[in-house]
């Protein structure tokens, strides 16, 4: 009987693992199968033509790139500093509680709500129009909880013995944080930041009403330009337009490119972490 229990438990462990892996492949295979052909270089580097029925996605790639980079420009500093505050200061308690509640609330909000918020707040209230700037700001708010949590975790994983050593050598609190805690946590901090980039790059709903346009024959010129973005482009190809038989293959290709980009970003995070960690065992 005990043997049977043991066996069935292991069986379910393997089964669940298998289901996870299989689902991933069921999900990836059609996209790769339908998407990989003729990607390089025409599709990556040409503009869409004839109302999205022909051509490439160059402006969407550029747009996604701009949106992502610009949003990190807003979210990284605020996120990192908040995380430092939570991990290293954590006083007074009511303020910490307030920030924590805000973070968990923010991370529980569906992304479409961020889109609507961005529309009413940045686009309308602050008259930023549908623009690169509005979209980046919306994305920045969306990614804040992810950044704060993971950077805080990274900082908290720094052994307290290192901090004690720093204090015993005459460091002030601030010096301990920036000479010991941050350098020691750096590989993890960097990884979390890069992973948050991957997350932001794939978001659709937040930029739908705040930044994205379905069709553009030009690259964005300034912060107030509308931009094309890969995820929204896929959405548009599938839901709008007049000739689905021409648009669906393009959507597959775009999905393939987006997946590939996110994969590259995440992979580089893993590689960087491994590289930096190699010299740091404790």
């Amino acid at each position: 009987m005990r043997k049977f229990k043991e066996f069935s438990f292991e069986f379910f462990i393997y089964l669940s693992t298998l289901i996870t892996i299989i689902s991933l492949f069921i999900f990836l295979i059609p996209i790769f199968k339908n998407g990989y052909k003729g990607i390089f270089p025409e599709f990556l580097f040409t503009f869409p033509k004839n109302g999205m029925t022909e051509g490439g996605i160059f402006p969407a790639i550029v747009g996604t790139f701009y949106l992502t980079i610009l949003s990190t420009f807003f979210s990284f500093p605020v996120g990192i500093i908040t995380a430092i505050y939570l991990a290293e200061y954590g006083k007074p308690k009511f303020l910490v509680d307030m920030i924590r509640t805000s973070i968990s609330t923010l991370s529980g909000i569906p992304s479409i709500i961020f889109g609507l918020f961005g529309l009413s707040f940045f686009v309308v209230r602050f008259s930023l129009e549908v623009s690169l700037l509005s979209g980046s700001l919306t994305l920045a708010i969306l990614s804040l909880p992810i950044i704060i949590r993971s950077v805080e975790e990274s900082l908290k994983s720094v052994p307290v013995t290192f901090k004690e050593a720093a204090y015993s050598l005459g460091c002030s609190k601030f010096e301990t944080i920036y000479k010991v805690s941050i350098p020691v946590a750096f590989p993890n901090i960097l990884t979390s930041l890069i992973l948050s980039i991957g997350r932001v790059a794939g978001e659709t709903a937040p930029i739908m009403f705040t930044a994205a346009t379905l069709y553009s024959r030009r690259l964005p010129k300034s912060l107030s330009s509308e931009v094309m973005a890969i995820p929204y482009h896929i959405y548009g190809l599938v839901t709008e337009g007049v000739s689905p038989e021409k648009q669906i293959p393009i959507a597959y290709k775009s999905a393939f490119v987006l997946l590939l980009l996110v994969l590259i970003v995440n992979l580089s995070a893993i590689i960087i972490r491994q590289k930096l960690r190699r010299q740091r065992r404790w």
Partner: protein
Amino acid sequence: MVKEKIKVENFNLYFKDKKVLNNINLSIFENKVTAIIGPSGCGKSTLIRSFNRMNDFYNAKVDGKIIFDGININDRNIDLSNLRTKIGMVFQKPNPFPFSIYDNVAFGLKVKGINDKSFIDEKVVKSLKDVWLYDEIKDRLFDSAMSLSGGQQQRLCIARALANDPEVLLLDEPTSALDPKSTQKIEELLEVLKKKLTIIIVTHNIAQAGRISDYTLFIYLGEIVEFGETKKMFTAPENKKTEEYITGIFG
């Protein structure tokens, strides 16, 4: 004649409402090794951490005086950074930073704002020589400190503290995580270092206290039971409790 380096007067320490150290009166003598012994949880570590105010991080409340260089270090306005460079500390578990060996030793100097590279180089080499580590690692100064053995790491931590030119060195059970050979090396090292500075060491190992210290302080339940010259205490302790602890009847 021995000179007094630190004087503790009517010192009490509380964590929240719990009194951890009770009415400590004590003199630490210059260029001597003072060992603090006692059973687990008696306040040894708390006492040694009082000398460089490391208990501040656990919200300790204190009263009474600890006088060092004519200043009460429990004063609110004292320059803690300056205090901690003058009173260095080595911890139970070797805790070099996960940086290079060089950067570990240079750390305190850089915190002080010293940028003169040749001065730092010189100081790093000298500190490493002082702990007999230089010859072992001179070809890999810029390797990670994590690649050293436990005993080497602990000597590196001593070198890191020495680079600040401290007057007092606090060691909180520095050899409890080390093998006998590394332990012996550190004991011999302290013997040499005490010519230049004053050493306070917490140890669980009674024999170690007997071997290396000039003065021994036995504390129990946060109070001093006996304090005196090691030779005398180990041969003719005044207090029954001390005798029982030293001979291993309890502890």
